[in-house]
């Protein structure tokens, strides 16, 4: 049996030598999660904006709903998306189950509440002065939205980073709807789960290090955005 120490050394070796199998998995993770964020962000920001500055019946309820969804377990999302995309489900004709698009759909669902809740807070935090300008433009206008989005850009950037951090590390949904297929839907978290079950810990540790480094980078970026947001409200 491999000791922890030798597995760790082997892991560093894999990372430094640029092991192609390892970096392919990292590539799948980034490709899937970046596309999920790109699709989720624009509509989520619009929803966050509407919830922040438009009064309408049921708004409190919607806000509570999105805050509840923040705690949505990834496996529940996975199960739901699975049932939708299975050939027996309502969207089965798309043939997306066990493909990257299925993983992207799951991650969009996971990212959406985070983007909405954090962007709503960012929109609420903008200078009342800017809000006056928006009111004269008409708060429902596209100009109103883009003006406020520019004012709130650091808070919105923080929302995107936080949502990205959540989805690139989730395993429950990706495993269920992606199927952990080598070269296609095996991403960092599902690969770690598989390598651990196979008892080959080196690759698991190497991928874990990639995730840790990424989390560190994202947190530094998050801190930077939040500090900028506080300095230029």
């Amino acid at each position, binding site marked *: *049996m*491999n000791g922890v120490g030798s597995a760790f050394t082997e892991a560093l070796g894999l990372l430094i030598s640029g092991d192609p199998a390892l970096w392919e998995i990292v590539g799948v993770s980034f490709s899937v999660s970046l*596309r999920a964020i*790109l*699709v989720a962000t*624009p509509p989520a*920001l619009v929803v966050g904006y509407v919830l922040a500055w438009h009064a309408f019946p049921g708004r409190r309820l919607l806000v509570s709903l999105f805050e509840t969804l923040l705690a949505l377990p990834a496996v529940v999302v996975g199960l739901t998306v699975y049932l939708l995309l*299975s*050939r*027996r489900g309502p969207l*089965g*004709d798309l*043939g997306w*189950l*066990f*493909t*990257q*698009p299925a993983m*992207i759909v799951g991650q969009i669902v996971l990212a959406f509440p985070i983007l909405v809740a954090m962007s709503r807070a960012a929109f609420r935090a903008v200078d009342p002065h800017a809000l006056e300008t928006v009111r004269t433009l008409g708060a429902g206008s596209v100009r109103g939205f*883009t003006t406020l*989005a*520019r004012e709130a*850009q650091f808070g*919105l*950037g923080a929302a995107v980073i936080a949502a990205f951090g959540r989805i690139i590390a989730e395993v429950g949904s990706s495993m269920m709807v992606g*199927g*952990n*297929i*080598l070269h*296609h839907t095996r991403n960092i978290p599902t690969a770690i789960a598989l390598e*651990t*079950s*196979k*008892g080959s810990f080196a690759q698991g540790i190497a991928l874990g290090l990639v995730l840790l480094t990424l989390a560190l980078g994202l947190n530094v970026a998050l801190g930077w955005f939040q500090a900028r947001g506080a300095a230029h409200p």
Partner: protein
Amino acid sequence: MRRRLFPRSWLLPVLALCFGVLSATAAPLRLATTTSTQNSGLLDHLLPAFQARTGIEVQVIAVGTGRALRLGEAGDVDVVMVHAPQAERRFVASGAGTQRFPFMKNAFLLVGPPDDPAHLRGETDVVQALVRIARSGARFVSRGDDSGTHKKERALWQAAGLHPQGDWYVEAGQGMGKVLQMAGELGAYTLTDQGTWLAYRDRVALEPLVGGDPRLDNPYAVIPVDPRRHPHVNHRAAMALVEWLRSPEGQRAIAAYRLHGRQAFVPTAIGPRRDETVP
């Protein structure tokens, strides 16, 4: 203009790109199979040779036999490779699969901790061995996942006239490799297929204890999902895999696969045709 994080000018092209990539997926062969064929490393040995011969890429979804058959029933995969003859016959009889194609076998064996608290060493009757485990109170890790191995295990308990339950009976709900690791860590017994066992034997503190009983035979079959029920399935590629696995080339590749110097699977389709036409 001031710096903007979200300029509208590139939003549309980016979105278009996202959806473009979303829809750009080809149609390779989807194979639902058991964790035993993947964890043993057999598929990594066979599939590149199959792809080199036919150009067909096989995407492997490794789950338990029970789930693999359900994926086939739902039409979510094109072909299944499993090891539970009774469940397979029901799968074909229900119209979900076209036909069972047996192509290889190996065997199950009981493994356990080196100190062997239930004194199984020397026992050749697997049912008697299970009775001893239950009597001794030693722990037993069950797959608990409706896999082929789990189905076999339940049939053996039934043959022993026992309904295992209690603290000693650990239902893991995990793949074969994970269960071997758990049994090793817990000092417990478990039932394993030979292929996965050979792949893991150096990594777990377990020893082979009971094997060779004919009731421990473990035949594998491939079954294409019936295109009459699911017209979208890649039936041609599924049949190409069936034919290759049962061809002399495929059968030789199975026989040649060695784990720690030992043959892990025995090809069974060489020579006279042995496919079952009527169950």
